[in-house]
């Protein structure tokens, strides 16, 4: 019961903030709602007893949004953007597409509940100790992807510099 209340609270928070992110005109406010949405998602992770994922979500996205925020100040003239329309004239088309996709999703869940093989539901009991489990998986089964991730990070690093610095 309590679990459900908490879940619906976080879910609603995430959904409403997400909608506000795309509808607010003031970009700084959008960023704030994005934080809220991400933190609410973190709350849902927590409810699934994924403690490590929860805190990683907080740390990474807090930092990430901080960066986004500064980019907003760097790149956008807020005075102008406040007076601009949020969508271009095809907004109704977008809405239609969103509805179609949404309907599709609902249908998939409704139909799939009986047809498609759903994974095991997340365990409602504690997975002690979650950090160790994440680590064990990462450094056991997924060792190679982990090392490849570092190459991915390297590529991102180089890409960022190449894009920003004209005369490298």
């Amino acid at each position, binding site marked *: 019961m309590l679990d459900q209340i908490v879940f619906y609270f976080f879910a609603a928070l995430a959904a409403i903030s997400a909608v506000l992110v795309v509808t607010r005109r003031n970009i700084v406010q959008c960023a704030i709602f994005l934080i809220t949405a991400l933190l609410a998602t973190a709350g849902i992770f927590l409810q699934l007893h994924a403690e490590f994922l929860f805190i990683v979500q907080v740390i990474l996205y807090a930092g990430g949004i901080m960066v986004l925020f500064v980019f907003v100040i760097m790149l956008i003239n807020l005075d102008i953007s406040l007076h601009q329309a949020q969508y271009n004239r095809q907004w109704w088309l977008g809405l239609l597409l969103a509805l179609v996709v949404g309907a599709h999703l609902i249908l998939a869940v409704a139909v799939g509940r009986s047809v498609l093989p759903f994974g095991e539901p997340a365990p409602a009991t504690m997975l*002690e100790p979650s950090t160790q489990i994440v680590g064990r998986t990462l450094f056991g089964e997924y060792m190679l992807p982990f090392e490849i991730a570092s190459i991915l990070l390297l590529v991102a690093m180089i890409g960022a510099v190449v894009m920003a610095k004209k005369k490298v």
Partner: protein
Amino acid sequence: MHAVIQYLISIWVPLVCALVIVGVLPLVTGYIVLMERKVMADMQARLGPMRVGPHGLLQPIADAVKLLIKEDIIPDEADKAIFWIAPLISVTAGMLAMSALAIGPWFQIADLNVGLLFIVGISALGIFGIVLGGWSSNSHYSLLGALRSAAQLVSYETAAGMAVVGALLLAGTLSTREIVTAQGDYGTWFIFAAPVGFFIYVVASIAETNRAPFDLPEAESELVAGYMTEYSGFRWALYFLAEYTNMVVVASIATTLFLGGWLRPFAGTPAFNFLDYFPSALMIFVGAYCLYRAPKQPVKVQQLFMMVLGLAFFGVALILAAPLIGRVNDMLPGLKPGLHGAFWFLLKVGSYIYLFMWLRFTFPRYRFDQLMRLGWQFLIPLSIVNVMGIGLALVLHRQWGWSHWTAFPLTTALTLLVAGWLGWAGEKKDKEHVFVGES
């Protein structure tokens, strides 16, 4: 409803802790400010606050009252909602980070599996309060302060995180409680195994809490008051509360990770058991000093106040001494680690904060590009090397059976070598940057 009450009864200790933290923290903050002013005055050959209460002891309360009843001004052009909410974000994040702290084995709201990461991650959210507050004020000075703050956090977060990783390598857990226990089991605090890591954390934590010499977001001689230029009255006080809360938080992280948490110095050595008397002795000393100063106060009320204060310290000394009596200890075996643990923890936190103050009054302020250079070109590479060095020492110790006494000094020396090289390279690069006139 009944279930809820039942539940509340089962978690009364954390709840009381929570209430105590929320209620007492502002007061503690006030007294840290007083301590800062007194320390500053002492270092600058003057007296500091002396008027409100004997030796200015009631100054924080007077300040709080003043700030609470000051006129509340929100600038016309400010983004009102964000302006309103920004200081709250800072304060809440700072306070919330405290919930996973273990102030002694007794006092802890929640012992989390990811405790340390929780503290680090949540306290980092406080920066949003600063950036949003600075941005919403719609003033150039505030905006500059906010941007500096964002860039500063970004540059030092990584170094701080890496320094934490260095200590975690030794501890092998993220729970604050178990980190301290691990240091007890090792028989040495992690500062001795990873001194470079501690150094990195000190520097990075000063930068993260916006304290001098890294206080660029609020550099008063350049940006007037930085991100809080437009704030006044209680909102301004909230930013102060957040700043000092954050100081306590980083000091607590450093204490937990590097300084042995609530452990007494030489906890494992029976020869040093006399240190158990230190807490009481210190309190008796402070109390005696208060009594000694009492007759010298100019006003009757102040004399009385000092007297009561002295007696109160004697009382605390008694409470701290109680577990040392054999019979009491037998009756309540948890009393000694609980009380003395809290004492040592707070003493270490206080010392760390004192270090912050000392640095603040000694050093000039960095310039922004220098701050970034220090972070990116010295601390981050050094912290990566530090992590590798500690890992290497552990492998040498575990796999090849080297003793602690050879493995750790060796890798520390290697790390220091790298630090020296980085410093030298930075210096060389610095020289190229300085454009010297031909004269």
